[in-house]
């Protein structure tokens, strides 16, 4: 008999996420599955660079810490873990998981690494058009990485094969949550309605605390109790693909239709066509109803046939950022900040800095929303100068010109910081799904 419902928890919504809430979920969430989504668009390109330097690197730096924290409770209760912390090196990540398990005395742990999302070599030099214009070939040797967003199929296959931990690279975020539903309920990979509903649930869970009151509080308008102890979400999903979204009782935060609505629309363009590798999900009929304290019932999602194309994230070298900042405070802060801005602009011109783009903002005045009302005058402002240059050497000049304001600029500037960092820009393209060849590799601790 297939299960009637399963409980899936979200243990992380980004690579730097808190670890405690995942432990709380593992210990008290009565989960079947715990999913860690830790792979931002650009993270995988950075991971590729790390792997080029060290063949055993290129996976999430918190992998061991997260697994160390949750594996004992997961093993005890039979909770299976799915994570994209493999980043650019799922196989090395799986080996690391095995090491952690052995260190905890959890021998025999079955780990599956999912490979096949890396299309860097397959796409290099091809005329595949980029969504932003140009082609992959046009990037030449600036190309760093090309990773396809894989679907839920191979993850479900890993679960069917008995994996207790599935470590992937690039997989569509909702698909990591959809996989256990496909596995447990035996959904057909052409059951568009159920795949669509499962995608709705996965999308609501994929940013973890963003649906339990994280990124929601706005004092006086939107109250979130005990935000400091924010708990992460879990969903109890039925065979039909409906779900009850909630969190561990006693944890901080809140789950209401409002928190779910913000997350439902997060990073969505056309809500009738949320394109995923497995399905074109339809969010327009979704209903979100309060079902008790910190519980929301999710129904009404839908879906249509997948497009047959996979989105590919393409990373490329785009030069170097150079940055410098300095603060001015007290009476006349704004005037001194403006003077500093004019001085740095002139000095960068005089030295003939070659920047592809340059920006001089006053934080506290116009750094985020551009020019606006200047009354009342801010009590403190911070000059921020940043540019993108072809070389690290050129980029360094920007911080240098801000630093030198100490002895060569307006009165009482303080708190200079400077930075130079490599720019890895992300583009995207579409490829036929058949181009990616997902493959599972098995390990045992």
């Amino acid at each position, binding site marked *: 008999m297939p299960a009637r419902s399963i409980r899936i928890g979200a243990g992380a919504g980004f690579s730097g996420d808190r670890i405690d809430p995942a432990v709380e979920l593992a210990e008290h969430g009565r989960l079947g599955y715990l999913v860690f989504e830790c792979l931002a*668009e*650009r993270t995988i390109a950075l991971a590729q660079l790390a792997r080029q330097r060290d063949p055993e690197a290129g996976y999430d730096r918190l992998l061991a810490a997260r697994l160390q924290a949750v594996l004992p409770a997961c093993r005890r209760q039979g909770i299976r873990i799915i994570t994209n912390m493999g980043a650019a090196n799922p196989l090395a990540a799986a080996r690391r998981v095995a090491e952690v398990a052995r260190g905890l005395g959890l021998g025999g742990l079955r780990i599956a690494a999912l490979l096949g999302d890396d299309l860097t070599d397959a796409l290099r030099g091809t005329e595949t058009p980029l*969504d*932003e214009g140009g082609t992959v070939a046009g990037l030449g040797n600036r190309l760093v990485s090309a990773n396809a967003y894989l679907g839920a199929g191979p993850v479900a296959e890993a679960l069917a094969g008995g994996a207790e931990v599935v470590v992937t690279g690039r997989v569509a975020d909702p698909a990591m949550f959809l996989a256990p539903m496909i596995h447990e309920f035996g959904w057909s990979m052409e059951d568009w309605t159920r795949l669509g509903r499962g995608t709705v649930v996965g999308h609501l869970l994929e940013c973890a605390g963003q649906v339990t009151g994280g*990124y*929601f509080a*706005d004092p006086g*308008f*939107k109250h979130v109790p005990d935000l400091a102890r924010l708990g992460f979400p879990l969903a109890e999903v039925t065979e039909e693909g409906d779900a009850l979204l909630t969190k561990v009782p006693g944890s901080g935060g809140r789950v209401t*239709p*409002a928190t779910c*609505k*913000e*997350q*439902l*629309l*997060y*990073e*969505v*363009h*056309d*809500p*009738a066509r949320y394109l995923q590798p497995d399905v074109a999900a339809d*969010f*327009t*009929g*979704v*209903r*979100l109803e309060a079902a008790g304290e910190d519980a929301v019932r999710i129904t*009404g999602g839908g879906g249509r046939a997948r497009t047959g194309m996979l989105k590919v994230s393409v990373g490329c070298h*785009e030069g170097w*950022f150079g940055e410098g900042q300095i603060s001015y405070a007290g009476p006349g802060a704004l005037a001194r900040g403006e003077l500093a801005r004019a001085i740095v602009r002139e000095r960068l011109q005089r030295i003939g800095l070659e920047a592809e*783009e*340059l*920006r001089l*903002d006053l*934080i506290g005045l116009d*750094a*985020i*929303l*551009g*020019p606006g009302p200047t009354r009342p005058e801010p009590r403190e402002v911070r000059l*921020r100068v*940043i*540019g*993108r240059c072809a070389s690290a050497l050129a980029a360094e000049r920007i911080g240098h010109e801000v630093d030198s304001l100490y002895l060569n600029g307006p009165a009482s500037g303080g708190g200079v910081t400077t930075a130079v960092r490599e*720019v*890895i*820009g*992300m*583009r*995207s393209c579409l490829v036929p799904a058949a181009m990616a060849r997902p493959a599972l590799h098995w390990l045992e601790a």
Partner: protein
Amino acid sequence: MLLRDLAHARAGDKGDTSSIGVIAYRAEDYARLERLLTPERVRAHFAGIVHGEVRRYALPGIGALNFVLEGALGGGVTRSLALDAHGKCLASAMLEIELPEEG
């Protein structure tokens, strides 16, 4: 009437495109949002920040409007020089919109 008194919002990013979900606190205010919070009004509010098209998708079932703002993120999150490269703050800036009173 400030939009902030009627609705809450969250911004997301994809490349150079920002998407902002605007959600009515009370179901009965949704129709008013749909009438008054037009793509044109949003585009005018973000003049100087949003350089491309503004599209709007309606989700009456949950009392929400989803706005897609192209050319809003300084050429794309990963290469933007902006302090808030993701445009996260645009959601709060959206709530500054003043809606006209209706007779």
